[in-house]
């Protein structure tokens, strides 16, 4: 114990980024990149062949050619990085060519949908916990709603809302809401019913009202469950927003970039949009995790 303290400073000891972890991460990334580059060669075989017109140029030049095709079946990682650089850094963020612009369009409907889904999910959970009959009557519908493929629902939502004058942000947000209220409801029902009998009995001895029990016991007890749900919810809210962009005729957003890319065979653009979407998803989940840690600390969680 003492030697441990002596050999390493407190911060280093607690740092999760140990040498072993770094090595594992770097080697895994290197391995995946290697597999990717190798896979490019057979995947792009036909395209490269056509491009070169049957000339025999040796295997070194062949490799180079198959890693720099304009319309590769599988573009090489550095091509995607170049595409990202060109569409994120080199163009103005408000230009329709900018991935930042498209990212923002998707992000805004994601966040609106996430907020609405969270509120809806919490309200449903509170209702279910407090009204016994709702657990039997409402829950099956909530579960059933999630068995319908979102790809089937999305065009209907867009068309129906479009016919009554709602276009753009609102329909996309509603598709996000539709997807992300579910984990919030499930998590919060579990969380709101998590207090022990003794903790509930205590409130009963104080003759506390139902709202007081909710505010002072059920709600704080549910907070850890809420954050677990929110992490899932925000990621699928993003999926909902992207799916919602597909049937709109691909005007703007990450979904539009995906659709555009597939129309014109711009695989690099598709991949760049996918990378952007996963970076956004990871950042959003990370942000929720950060807020969770702050809330946990404020609520007396063990460090």
């Amino acid at each position, binding site marked *: 114990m003492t030697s441990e303290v002596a050999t390493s400073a407190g911060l280093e000891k607690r740092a999760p980024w140990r040498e072993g972890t770094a090595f594992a991460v770097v080697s895994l990334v290197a391995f995946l990149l290697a597999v990717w580059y190798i896979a490019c060669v057979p995947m792009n075989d036909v395209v490269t062949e056509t491009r070169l017109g049957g000339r025999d140029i040796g295997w070194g030049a062949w490799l180079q050619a198959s890693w720099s095709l304009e319309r590769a079946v599988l573009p090489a990682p550095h091509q995607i990085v170049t595409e990202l650089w060109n569409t994120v850094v080199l163009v103005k963020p408000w230009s329709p060519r900018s991935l930042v612009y498209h990212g923002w369009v998707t992000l805004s409907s994601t966040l609106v949908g996430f907020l609405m889904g969270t509120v809806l999910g919490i309200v449903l959970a509170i209702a279910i916990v407090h009204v016994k009959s709702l657990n039997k009557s409402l829950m099956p519908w909530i579960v059933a709603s999630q068995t319908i493929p979102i790809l089937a629902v999305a065009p209907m939502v867009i068309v129906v809302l479009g016919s009554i004058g709602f276009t753009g942000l609102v329909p996309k947000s509603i598709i996000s809401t539709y997807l992300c209220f579910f984990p919030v409801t499930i998590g919060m029902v579990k969380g709101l019913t998590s207090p022990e009998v*003794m903790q509930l009995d205590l409130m*009963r001895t*104080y003759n506390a009202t139902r709202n007081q029990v909710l505010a002072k016991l059920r709600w704080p007890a549910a907070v850890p469950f809420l954050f677990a749900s929110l992490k899932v919810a925000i990621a699928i809210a993003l999926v909902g927003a992207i799916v919602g962009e597909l049937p709109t005729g691909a005007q703007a957003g990450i979904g539009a970039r995906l659709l555009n890319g597939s129309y014109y065979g711009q695989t690099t653009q598709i991949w760049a949009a996918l990378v952007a979407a996963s970076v956004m998803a990871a950042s959003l989940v990370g942000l929720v995790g950060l807020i969770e840690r702050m809330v946990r600390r404020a609520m007396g969680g*063990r460090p």
Partner: protein
Amino acid sequence: MQAGTAGQATSGRAPVIAANKLSLTFETNDGPVYALSDVDVSIDEGEFVSLIGPSGCGKTTLLRIIADLERPTSGRISVNGLTPEGARLARQYGYVFQAPALYPWRTVERNVRLPLEVMGYAASEQVERARRNLALVNLSGFEKKFPWQLSGGMQQRVSIARALSFDPKLLLMDEPFGALDEIVRDTLNTQLLKLWRETGKTVVFVTHSIPEAVFLSTRIVVMSPRPGRIIDVIETSFPADRTLDIRETPEFLKVAHRVREGLRAGHSYDE
């Protein structure tokens, strides 16, 4: 239960708790369980009454009926001249559970303030009462700590401070020290005795420890299981300022012996 609707205690020294032919049967899938059977008990103001017996003898059930956490199947009971429900709605008792049941997201001070918040005390009054009651259980200076930073014994003292914070005249304690080791338990027994002497509360105390019951109580109610009933009621007459040393005296041992005899008699039918 007409006494309850009247809402007033009868004149004179009416008992704080009066139970008459109290029975409670739980209907389970394996048939009825007779938790309590024809229990008569009367507890006066300022008494310290222990309910002792093996697990399953209904001592906790009796306490929970007093607290209106269970309803009796038959019989009558009044608490401060009210029905148990009336007493609960009027917040006339403080309840200490087997476990501290602190809310982990609240600091020690905010845990003690919980009942005061529920009952709508002014914020300054809450702070002042939390401070005073934490001092009473020797926990001054721990206001800003969270429950997990405290030992089990300290947590249970917080829960006692919480039960006392709104100054109920009646304190119901359900094996509050059952989960603690004997050394901590001895200390807390001494502190509880002092607290009882200083505050003059009526205490109903459930335990399965003979020395604890004999040391703390003015009266010991010995119970037996299946069905839960009262075997013996023993008055004690130890000086109010007694210390743990009295456990070595012949009088103490005599009372303890009688309690043990009662427990054995209640158990003789099987096991």
